[in-house]
């Protein structure tokens, strides 16, 4: 895709198109990751439909994964700050 990006350097429409497709691809990849993880956590034996407990589990799984990621980022930043203030 990088030759395409070179071509688009002077073309606004192409730049915008690439940016949007890139964002869409990121969202898509994230959904795949969630599905990968939450399937393992929530799905037992496949049946005729997803029962409401399973649906709740999947939905909670996505939110809790994001919460986990935010919490880890936050605490890691704090730890780095503490570390650097000690080194001073």
């Amino acid at each position, binding site marked *: 895709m990088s030759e395409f990006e070179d071509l688009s350097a002077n073309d606004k429409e*192409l730049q915008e198109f690439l940016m949007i497709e890139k964002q869409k691809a990121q969202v898509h990849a994230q959904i795949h990751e969630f599905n990968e993880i939450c399937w393992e956590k929530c799905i037992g034996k*496949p049946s005729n439909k997803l029962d409401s407990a399973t649906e709740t589990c999947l939905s909670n799984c996505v939110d809790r994964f994001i919460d986990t990621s935010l919490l880890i980022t936050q605490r890691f930043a704090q730890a780095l700050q503490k570390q650097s203030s000690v080194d001073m």
Partner: protein
Amino acid sequence: MSMANVDKGELISQVKQQIAVANAQEMLTQMTQKCFKKCVNKPGTSLDSGEQKCISMCMDRFMDSWNLISQTYGQRLQRME
């Protein structure tokens, strides 16, 4: 290479198609792994009817799961703005 020689619309359309194909492939790969894991526990000399039925249901549940997760993620992104 000048853009005058290339039909921009066609280029955009080709890239979109390639992206769609890549997405479908990723979906299929994940679906195959998940459903094999769930449905084929003791590999025999062929897939018996129980395994086939399980795989069929599994594919549908996988898509249900994917759509639900997509929806939940979309809603969460909106709340985070």
